[in-house]
């Protein structure tokens, strides 16, 4: 089975893969939802606003419970990650999502799937990981000061213990790229493979429990990514850590 996304065609040298198309579809869905909610925003909330406020309030209250006043600048990132990932994941759970085929000269008899879960592309999950880690570090510099931020990684106190601890911190930060990106990528890719296998074995009935499982994984993985981002942002912007 292929892990990398399939290149469907090129536009001015830029490869358009099936995950890129799904990413764009997710973008459109998210932007449409944003404008629907933005249009519905009022002091007396309607159903749409209530639904969005429930999600937003859950993350805001959780962030406030952990980070206190710093929730004001942390939680928009958390909600952004959650919404983008959850929509990307859920779009891929629509039945028949991968069954639309796209034929290229190199695609063979079965062709390529026109659509594939955006988060099953390591390019996307790594981009999300990089955004999360860099945003965390920018917020850390902004809210704790550059001096404190550097001291976190380079310190000559009780030499060489804290220098070693700083080195471990650097490794920890680098590991975040891998843990963030591969966790999401691995879960969604594996889910896709499991679903493909189940549909291959018996398309009627057998995939049902796995669909339920994948729906849960889709939401859980989005929450995990968002929560980890929140935890790391809290730790990095707190001077006591």
């Amino acid at each position, binding site marked *: 089975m292929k892990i990398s996304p399939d290149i469907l065609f090129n536009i001015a040298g830029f490869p358009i893969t099936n995950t890129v198309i799904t990413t764009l579809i997710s973008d459109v869905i998210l932007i449409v939802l944003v404008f629907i909610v933005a249009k519905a*925003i009022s002091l007396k909330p309607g159903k749409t606003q209530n639904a*969005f406020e429930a999600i937003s309030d859950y993350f805001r209250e959780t962030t406030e419970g952990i980070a206190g006043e710093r929730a004001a600048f942390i939680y928009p990132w958390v909600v*952004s990650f959650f919404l983008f990932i959850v929509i990307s994941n859920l779009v891929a759970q629509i039945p028949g999502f991968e069954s639309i085929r796209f034929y290229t000269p190199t695609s063979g008899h079965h062709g390529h799937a026109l659509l594939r879960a955006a988060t099953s592309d390591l390019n996307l999950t*790594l981009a999300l990981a990089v955004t999360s880690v860099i945003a965390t570090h920018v917020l850390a510099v902004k809210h704790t000061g550059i001096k404190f931020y550097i001291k976190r990684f380079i310190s000559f106190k009780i030499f060489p213990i804290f220098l070693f601890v700083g080195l471990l911190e650097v490794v920890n930060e680098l590991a975040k790229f891998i843990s963030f990106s591969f966790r999401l990528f691995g879960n969604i890719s594996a889910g896709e493979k499991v679903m493909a296998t189940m549909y291959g074995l018996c398309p009627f009935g057998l995939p049902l429990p796995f669909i339920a499982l994948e729906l849960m994984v889709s939401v859980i993985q989005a929450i995990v990514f968002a929560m980890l981002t929140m935890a790391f942002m809290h730790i990095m912007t707190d001077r006591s850590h």
Partner: protein
Amino acid sequence: MGMIQNFGLETKLFLFQLINFLIIVFILKKFLFNPLKKMLDERKRKIEQSLQDAQNAKLALENAGQEKKKILADAKVGADKLMASVKAIADKAKEKALAEAKSRSQQIIEEANNKASAEFENMNKQIGRMSVDVSNKILSKVLSDLFTEEEKQKLMSRALERINEKITN
């Protein structure tokens, strides 16, 4: 490097996804989080304002209650004062009327006494005159048989003088 290629990592796709997500974050922030924050702040402000208004209304109600009690107390004090002054005036008027009635009755009694005394004196005088006439007649009758005409005249004169003296005394 081969392993990375197996995962399909490609700089162009990575940059596309990175920029794509940053655009999404920008859109979310500009069109969702900012208006939502503005609305939540406004809602919070309105709730706080409503609570403040409710608190003010409660205070105003309490003040009105106290004001009402004060007004009632003042009115009661005023009414008591008025009642006391009315009572004093009524007492004065009563005393004055009583004194006037007393003096008038005294006057009437005095007038009645004087009138009665005058009547009594007048009666006495009339009785005196009548008794003189009666005595004269009795004496004339009695003496006409016992004494001569001359003696009768002397006795009568003397008796009449005495009666006159008595009457005058």
